[in-house]
């Protein structure tokens, strides 16, 4: 069951085609990575999902039904460029933003207290936002994004500005939210976290989709059949490292066993980082 479906969405600003016939399917309870270089059209696509802008053509289906204004309550959005009212109290502000998402004031207050306890930040309740550090503000923003328990969560660069400990905390929260039933759309340039978190990804460049699929499948598709081998040769000359390209790994293993003791044998899979760079630069060359 796909919770989110985008069908043939296009958007043009002036003469510039920002999105060209983009289609994706995001299964329920999965994490979907939306990847692409700066200016690829990710933010426009996310704004279309949030109904901030309308697509010129195409359709967005949420839970099988076309997107409508009441879906605002079903979506939580953490934008890349994010901020809070500096002069407002943290709690007042979070409750205000939750109310705008359609929550009742009392319920928002109750859930906010729960989240503040969970993150160990209960002492910030009456502080003004300007008294908090940037990392602290980011935590508040994360809570604001998830407080109304949306079915679809959109995170745009959620880890920027966090220290490694908080990145870890956030990753665990994101996984927990998915396990509880949320579908997550995740946009980032941090390929390590893509490999760690995403089930499926889409890579867009200049408004065009250039790659889509599960992280595993994509890695398989772009592997170049090279293997990393460590063995101890029979002549007793210590461990030897080899990197070999072959389409027949069995033959390779037999060959090595005959020469000595095999210590480790690993297939080298391309990192998402490499795939990203290769695909984007080759698609840029094609366009020129």
């Amino acid at each position, binding site marked *: 069951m796909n919770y989110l479906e985008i069908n043939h969405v296009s958007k043009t600003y002036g003469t510039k085609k920002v999105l060209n016939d983009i289609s994706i399917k995001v299964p329920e309870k999965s994490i979907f990575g939306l990847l692409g270089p700066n200016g690829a059209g990710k933010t426009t696509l996310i*704004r279309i999902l*949030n*109904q*901030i802008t309308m697509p010129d053509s195409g359709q967005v289906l949420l839970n099988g039904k076309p997107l409508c204004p009441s879906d*605002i309550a079903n*979506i939580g*959005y953490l*934008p890349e*460029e*994010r*901020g*809070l*009212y*500096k*002069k*407002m109290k943290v709690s007042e502000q979070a409750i*205000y*933003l939750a*109310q*705008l*998402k*359609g929550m009742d004031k009392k319920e928002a207050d109750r859930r906010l207290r729960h989240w503040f306890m969970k993150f160990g930040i209960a002492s910030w309740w009456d502080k003004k936002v300007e008294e908090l550090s940037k990392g602290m503000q980011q935590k508040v*923003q994360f809570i*604001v994004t998830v407080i109304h328990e949306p079915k679809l969560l959109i995170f745009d660069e959620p880890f920027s500005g966090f220290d490694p400990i908080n990145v870890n905390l956030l990753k665990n929260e994101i996984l927990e939210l998915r396990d509880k039933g949320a579908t997550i759309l995740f946009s980032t340039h941090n390929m390590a976290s893509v490999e760690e978190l995403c089930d499926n990804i889409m890579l867009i460049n200049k408004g065009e989709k250039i790659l889509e699929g599960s992280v595993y499948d994509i890695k398989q598709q772009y592997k170049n059949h090279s293997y990393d081998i460590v063995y101890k040769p029979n002549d007793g000359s210590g461990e030897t490292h080899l990197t070999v390209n072959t389409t027949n790994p069995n033959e390779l293993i037999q060959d090595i066993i005959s020469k000595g003791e095999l210590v480790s044998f690993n297939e080298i899979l391309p990192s998402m980082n490499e795939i990203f760079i290769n695909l984007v630069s080759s698609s840029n060359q094609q366009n020129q």
Partner: protein
Amino acid sequence: MKIGIIIEREYLTRVKKRSFLIITFLAPIFFAALMFLPAILMTQSDKFEERRTIAVCDETTLFTNRLEETDANTFLYINKDIDEAKSLVKDGEYDAVLYIPATTLNVPTNAEIYSMKQLPMSLTSHIRSQMKQVVEREKLLASGIDPAIVKASATTINLQTIKMSDKDDGEQKSFGEFEFILGLALALVIYFVIFIFGSQVMRGVIEEKTNRIIEVIVSSVKPFELMMGKIIGIALVGLTQFLLWGVLTLVISGVASSFLPTQDVFSAGTVMTEQIAEAGINTTDDSTLTEVFEVINSINFKDILWCFLLYFIGGYFLYSAMFAAVGAAVDNETDTQQFVTPISLLLVIPMVCSSLIASAPDSSLAFWISMIPFTSPVGMMLRIPFGVPIWQVVLSVAILFITFIIFTWLASKVYRTGILMYGKKTSWKEIFKWIKY
């Protein structure tokens, strides 16, 4: 309703600010002080003044026993040498000595007053006017004219302008000057409040944009709702402030006048007229004070208040929609100048013409300025105290409100595009493009 939540936030965050409270509570105290301090000072001034004994060393003998004494000042006519008198001032016998040297023609026009301390202006001007009366009287007598005749011949002309109207009972005394001042004051107030609260809208929009909170908010509400919520919320802040000012001014005036018996205020008025009479100006039965009260009574303050509120709301909405669009179009407050200047010029036009309008409130210039929606709030306020035909007020308010609806709609288009644009310097051309989207 989400717009209600937005209005609530915009309203509460501003009303709870310390600066709002300070301005709200200090301004009425200031107004009340302006109203009452002169009256208080006038009635109490005698009590502050020290008692003085002034020796008069009059070589002409013309003034002996002819200078009128006041509560604080006693004149003592002495027959001593001026040097001796001066040394007595030094010893503290007298507070001052007035020396009138002898003249050959016996029309003394020079005098000197010696004292150890600075003498108040009121004393020197009293002496001057007393001496003047005495000398003038002497001169008249010398020419064989009875001073009583001269006094009786002094006249002031009281010219009353009466405005006629179609109704039989509609004849009304009109008092140009008071209306002129009231009109200017109203125009100035409405000019400032539109500008102050309009630019608050602009700053609010810029704050949301530079804070980058805007993206989260527009994913929850429509930009139009956010813009209108802000405009309405700030309008309510303005109305709250007016209401509190009104109530507090009344309360403070009430308290102040209970400390100051009304008798004193009226006697202050009579003191004033007496002084004018003394200065040689003969007043008719209508004292200036009663005339002022008559003018105040003849003005329909209720109608003026309603007009003020209508034009405040209309003008504020029109201008704040434009200010909101400007706020959305720029990245920070320093970039607003190129857009704010033309907008504020529109509002300044009627202020520039204010004396022309108020001195000829029925001229065609006044008519058109009070019809054009950008200038009508200020323009109409200048004319209102003189009485404006009701059809003109209705027409002008209708034009103003229709324009503000159109402009809110246009502004919302600029706003919608502008709030999500970063890092680009916006030009007028760009703004017109956004309207067409």
